[in-house]
């Protein structure tokens, strides 16, 4: 085998390896994607987080709540139940859930009814960072945060 053929073979192998590695990386979750790390480790409950987001990212919160109000009642309820279930998980289970949703777009049934069902909680690292910084200062389980007209 000539040197040229060897070089080409090595280059092809390297390229194939790079492609397959990048394929896996793009499907995998990271510590910040799709669910930000601060959401995974926060000890705040759903209502504490929401109240903090209402005050620290008010327009983002408002848009989420408007979007929510335009969903059928059963979908709103499903999203409500699902986000409470998520916040009941420990960080390890949250990280696993992040992995599951990153690798399988059909894993989260709620998302098939409402694509942005968790936007306030998962989608924006800046929003999450600001809210998780102060959420512990809000009362836990205060359902009045959902009362938004």
């Amino acid at each position, binding site marked *: 085998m000539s040197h040229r053929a060897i070089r080409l073979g090595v280059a092809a192998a390297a390229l194939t390896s790079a492609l397959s590695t990048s394929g896996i990386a793009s499907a995998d979750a990271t510590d910040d994607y799709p669910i930000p790390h601060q959401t995974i480790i926060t000890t705040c409950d759903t209502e504490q987080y929401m109240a903090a987001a*209402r*005050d*620290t990212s*008010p*327009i983002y919160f*408002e848009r989420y709540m408007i979007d929510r109000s335009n969903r059928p009642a059963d979908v709103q309820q499903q999203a409500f139940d699902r986000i409470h279930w998520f916040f009941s998980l420990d960080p390890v289970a949250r990280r696993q859930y992040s992995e599951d949703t990153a690798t399988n777009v059909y894993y989260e049934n709620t998302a098939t009814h409402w694509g942005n069902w968790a936007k306030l909680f998962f989608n924006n690292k800046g929003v999450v960072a600001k809210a998780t910084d102060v959420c512990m200062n809000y009362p836990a389980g205060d359902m*009045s945060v959902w*009362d*938004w*007209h």
Partner: protein
Amino acid sequence: MKYTVVALITGAAVVLAAPAAADPDTDFSQELHTYGIYGQKDYNAWIGKLVCKRLNDNVDHTAFDSATFLGDNLDHDNTTEQNWQFLNAALSNYCPDNRPILAHAAMAQH
């Protein structure tokens, strides 16, 4: 006679249409400019309306609560006076029913 009536109706329609066509967000934005408050028109309009919503939904209870919300979410280079001017403009343009909170705040100061 018929033409006169048509002209009057058309004239009335034009007069009536003019106020309806005015954009409250533009009025609000222009008022803010007189206080030296600039920034994105849409952002300011959202925040102005949210001042009202927070009062109506019992998240904020007093003008001081509203001023705190504004201080956190408007340009941090704004003066305290500008934040109160923003509050005054938001109440006037989006929820005049809530204007009495300003008088209550003034009384609380004395």
